[in-house]
């Protein structure tokens, strides 16, 4: 099928399949799936600026459905999510402007491609290492599987920083934390969302769990709540800059709808560290796809 806005021909069944896969991820892992959808779109031949914008558009719709489901399960910390949105919006706008600069310089593909690869490999390695540690803790220390986080030192240190104003998040079990830490996490993930075309969940999830110390199930729901706003704002700002093919996003979303149903239901059957271990190898798929396109497209020799 020819997509006139992006000026590219892509098999719609392939796009629906990508949507289906990231729909499962969105519901199950609490991430938008952009870290996988973006590289897959790039691999099929979609220009990088349209990958970034269209991926955000497709995630907006998918995330609103998944967030509704997690809200019904009581997995969304609205207070935390609302504060993070403030930081996220600023980051998204800065990221979108960064894309425009790279587009005009003609270095968009190589820069964004390499940043994708570095981030995806790092996230994969860190998440695998942490979740294996946490699973071992469950076995040896007999702690509750939902409380097992193999990397609690950072979150305790972050929560002990007394940089005013301080704020509490009872739903997430946080008695006191500096608001700047929350805004900082929001800004960083917004920057990634705006510049890579991802919801930011693959970086926000680890930051929420390991840095802020949020329980995994609340992190999943709150992350999806955040993605609705970060990707919604990203869609608008990228569409105005001519980087969104809405038709492509609509086609992808048809697959995502049924995938989200499966993914959200599946979270009830698997506990914290196992979710994170299953998540850990997925970013590598995205990294390989980006590398293949960069080599195949002659960007890397």
């Amino acid at each position, binding site marked *: *099928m*020819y*997509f*006139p*806005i992006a000026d590219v021909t892509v098999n*719609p069944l392939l796009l*629906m399949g990508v949507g289906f896969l990231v729909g499962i991820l969105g519901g199950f892992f609490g991430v938008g799936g952009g870290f996988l959808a973006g590289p897959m779109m790039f691999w099929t031949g979609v220009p990088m600026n349209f990958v970034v914008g269209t991926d955000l*558009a*497709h995630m*907006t*719709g*998918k995330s*609103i*459905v998944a967030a*509704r489901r997690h809200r019904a399960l009581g997995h969304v910390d609205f207070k935390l999510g609302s504060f993070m949105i403030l930081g996220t919006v600023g980051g998204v706008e800065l990221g979108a402007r960064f894309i425009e600069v790279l587009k005009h310089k003609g270095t968009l593909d190589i820069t964004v491609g390499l940043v994708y690869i570095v981030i995806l490999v790092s996230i994969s390695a860190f998440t695998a290492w942490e979740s294996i540690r946490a699973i071992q803790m469950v076995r040896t220390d007999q702690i509750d599987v939902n409380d097992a986080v193999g990397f609690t030192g950072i979150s305790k240190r972050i929560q002990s920083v007394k940089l005013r104003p301080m704020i509490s998040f009872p739903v997430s079990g946080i008695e006191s934390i500096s608001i700047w830490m929350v805004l900082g996490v929001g800004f960083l993930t917004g920057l990634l969302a705006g510049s890579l075309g991802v919801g930011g969940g693959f970086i926000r999830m680890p930051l929420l769990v390991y840095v802020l110390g949020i329980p995994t199930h609340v992190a999943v729901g709150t992350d999806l709540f955040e993605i609705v706003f970060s990707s*919604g704002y990203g*869609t*608008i700002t990228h*569409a*105005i*800059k*001519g980087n*969104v093919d*809405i*038709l492509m*996003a*609509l*086609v992808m*979303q*048809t*697959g995502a*709808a*049924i995938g*989200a*149903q*499966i993914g959200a*239901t*599946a979270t*009830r*059957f*698997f506990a914290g560290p196992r979710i994170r271990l299953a998540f850990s190898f997925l970013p590598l798929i995205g990294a390989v796809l980006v590398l293949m396109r960069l080599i195949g497209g002659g960007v890397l020799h």
Partner: protein
Amino acid sequence: MKRMDPRKLLRNLLIEVVIYSFLIVAYYLLVLHSIGGWLAAIFGSNLYQYAFIGLGLILAQAVILDIVTSLMMKYIKLDQFGIRRILDVFSNR
């Protein structure tokens, strides 16, 4: 909860996916395939209008598809025998 044969459960999951696929193919041929030219025309004339119409379409489609998939699972009673039951069986192993 009564346990079911995993083969039956997988069969029911496939039924769900096949029914949904038929609905989506029809929707693609009737709606999505025909709005490409209209969207391209708006994209060429006014990017602000395109941005907000695009976001509206994405949100509307997401909500409608969610209602369709939920109703499909609820009224065809597939949710009792399909995905959820499959997960029940495999998580108890």
